[in-house]
């Protein structure tokens, strides 16, 4: 049985139809995905990123479509000032960690090359607060929240191999943040907290195992 038919049988939801809904009714060609409803005229980078990510992870996209989505996402990117190079705003306001992390993930899922994603990852590394979290856009230190730490952590964990020590240190600070953030005792946030803990642990294991694998392969070759 296909994924779609299992979902249809058990939940009644037709995934092919939901994908079509996103593509046909929520997408404005060359601009992005509408931020809330199909009949609302405003596109947003954050919504475009989650839609692109979902479409690219749940079914095939033609190369032409991938290229179009990549162009649309990159059009939101801030490139003018050195401070914000590589960052993405939620709509048109300040650049934010949430949208930047999410858009970098969407670009990665489209298969965008490393040089395209790297400026965003660098921006996230630069803007991580000393306590390991990320602020809401436009605010100063002290406003770090678990929710804004989520996507930055995911993209850093995904890029950890090529980030090396920089990535490992950033992820270690995320671990500290998880133990100190305001949401650490709230039940609602338990799945997100544990998800980030798991990603952090996977990154740690991967960092430790990789040199062993290289040594093993090198030994075998010799």
């Amino acid at each position, binding site marked *: 049985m296909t994924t779609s038919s299992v979902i249809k049988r058990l939940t009644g939801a037709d995934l092919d139809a939901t994908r*079509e809904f996103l593509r046909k009714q929520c997408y404005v060609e060359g601009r992005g995905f509408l931020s809330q409803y199909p009949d609302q005229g405003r596109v947003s980078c954050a919504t475009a990123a989650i839609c692109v990510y979902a479409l690219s*992870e749940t079914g095939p996209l033609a190369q032409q479509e991938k290229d179009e989505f990549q162009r649309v996402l990159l059009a939101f990117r801030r490139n003018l000032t050195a401070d914000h190079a590589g960052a993405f705003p939620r709509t048109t306001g300040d650049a934010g960690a949430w949208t930047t992390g999410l858009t970098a993930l969407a670009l990665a899922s489209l298969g965008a090359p490393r040089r395209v994603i790297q400026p965003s990852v660098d921006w996230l590394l630069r803007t991580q607060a000393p306590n390991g979290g990320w602020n809401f856009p436009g*605010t100063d230190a002290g406003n770090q929240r678990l929710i804004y730490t989520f996507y930055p952590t995911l993209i850093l964990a995904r890029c950890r191999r090529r980030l090396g020590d920089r990535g490992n240190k950033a992820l270690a600070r995320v671990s500290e943040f998880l133990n100190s953030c305001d949401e650490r005792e709230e039940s609602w946030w338990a799945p997100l907290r544990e*998800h980030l803990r798991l990603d952090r642990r996977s990154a740690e294991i991967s960092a430790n195992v990789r040199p062993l694998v290289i040594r093993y392969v090198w030994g075998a070759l010799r």
Partner: protein
Amino acid sequence: MSGLLSFATYGELFDEDWPTIHVDEDWLPERFSMVQMCGSNYLHLRRMVRPDGPLALLHIRYFADERIGNGWNDKREDQPKTWATALGTLTLHRWAHDLARVRATLRRLPTRAELLTQLRSGNQPVPNASRAARSLLRTLAELQPGRANATKYQHWVRDVFMFLFGDVLKEPRLESRTLSGTLRRDITFRNAAEKGPWFDWKLQYQIEPLVIECKNTETLMYDDLRQTASYLGKRMGHLAILACRKNSGNDVSEMLNVLVTNDEKYVLVVNDDNLIDWIRLKDSGEDPTDAVADLYRSLREGVQ
């Protein structure tokens, strides 16, 4: 371990309603508010819980119950939202892959009430089945499919519906004849509901008398459905239940959809698996009406 403990308290959030959380940032000049849907939290949980476990399935149940056409909305408005639909699509897709990965087979998605019961019973000793429930389950186990046991099966179905819905379905009658006397309906109940889904169906489909047809066979035939549908109309209303032993295939689903589309006749097919689940659900103190409503909704939405 701390993760497991926090999941236990997280699961309790589902007790009253589908949990949501609003992230309000009021120090900003332009107030920012974001709602988080519970369903997509499965994406966080999926590497820590089994996809066919009650906590995972509660999230999936949310997407089954809260769907609006081809999408979802975090605030129960009447049209889907773009981002919520993207998250719903992603979540269900990942979940279906997770099911395949662990080779889990789900006959159906349990109702919210069933899942909450399972979740609670994970922390508490499971109560023994009552005598009535045990007796019904034992009788079914001994009942072989086939014409020879048709009457026994008919009696068993009557007893099950009395056990499950005895507070709203009254005065069961076996083999009641049609006006002309040519046809005999296996079981009829008087629908005495004064509120809830049974009451709604009574008004909507005129099922003051509810017809239940019993087929002690493993394969449903076209004629079985046609016969059940033939009882429906002005006098007996537009909704009936057809009890059979095994799951129906795609042909039957198509036929059921045709009956709804062409004649506005709803035939809810229930099998051994459904009825066993419902008996256990009722026995644990929950109301299986939700499960019937679920079946009805699947049929109604299947033709949309």
